[in-house]
């Protein structure tokens, strides 16, 4: 029984935002399916925690410190990367802010992290041919901004909608190198990002009841989607935004 269309053996995969939440879970899951994983994040200590949890089926894992919003760090990261078969761009942030408080500064802060950083990384990985022919790129977007428009999520949702848009253009353009580009649009996933206190724990518990499948997502729900998109099982899929939200946006 070695049939496994989701195997990542022999693939080298970059995961950004790998020090917590969806990024951390994705990095670990990729290692369990045999990938060589390159993890990157800003915080050395937390990145090391992820690195220590990687399964060593492949022994070539690497960790590279980088702040995705720093052009210097990005360029250094690109120069340090081996050829990639896949990349999962998880680094991001969120804010809950009614639109009337969404000043240019608030939008800029959100777009710098959620839009400009991953888009610039994608551009450089393609231009410098770090992404090999046939590689698969997965952007972590959100149902916010494309499938769901909850009050208070406008600044965040707009940054993720813009990311989804670039994902589709990149899918068209990069197809010439058989590079696939897809995104995952998660609903609320239980990660440190949603426990910042703007929304109380009581409100979160109440909100989770609105999900048809009865709970918020877990990081592994999203990591499993990323595995599908990285693996050869999705060889004919590109430009797709995969909604994983427990039925919330139906």
């Amino acid at each position, binding site marked *: 029984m070695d049939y496994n269309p989701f195997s990542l053996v022999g693939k080298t995969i970059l995961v950004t935002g790998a020090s917590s939440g969806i990024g951390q879970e994705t990095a670990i899951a990729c290692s369990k399916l045999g990938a060589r994983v390159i993890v990157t994040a800003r915080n050395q200590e937390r990145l090391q925690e992820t690195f220590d949890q990687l399964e060593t089926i492949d022994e070539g894992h690497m960790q590279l410190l980088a702040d995705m919003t720093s052009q210097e760090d990005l360029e250094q990261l690109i120069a340090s990367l081996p050829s990639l078969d896949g990349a999962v761009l998880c680094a991001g942030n969120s804010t809950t802010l*009614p639109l009337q*408080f969404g000043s240019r500064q608030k939008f800029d802060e959100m777009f710098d992290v959620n839009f400009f950083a991953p888009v610039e990384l994608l551009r450089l990985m393609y231009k410098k041919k770090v992404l090999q022919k046939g590689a698969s790129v997965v952007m972590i977007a959100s149902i916010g901004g494309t499938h769901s428009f909850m*009050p*208070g999520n406008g600044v965040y949702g707009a940054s993720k909608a813009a990311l989804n848009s670039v994902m589709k253009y990149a899918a068209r353009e990069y197809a010439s190198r058989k590079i696939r580009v897809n995104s995952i649009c998660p609903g609320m996933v239980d990660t440190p990002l949603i426990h910042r*206190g703007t929304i*109380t*724990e*009581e409100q979160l518990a109440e909100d989770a009841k609105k999900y048809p499948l009865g709970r918020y997502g877990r990081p592994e729900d999203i990591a499993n989607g990323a595995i599908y998109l990285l693996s050869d099982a999705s060889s004919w899929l590109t430009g797709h935004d995969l909604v994983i939200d427990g039925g919330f946006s139906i």
Partner: protein
Amino acid sequence: MNIQDFIENFAAQFDDTDEALFTAETEFKALDEWSSLTALSIIAMVDDEYDVIIKGSDILNSNTIQDLFEIVENQQQ
């Protein structure tokens, strides 16, 4: 910061509630118009006007506008 300005800024987050109803002793969560979006607006207003980040639980734990004012004042120091 003074309580009168705070009450005015607080009241500005409401659309249909009579301004006369807003005093330091107003139990704001009992107002008909109160909603989760109003709570988000109050948090954002406090950040904007007073440069203080309060949490949803600060609102939950406050009964009157005075209670919240004191939380913001304490964090400013």
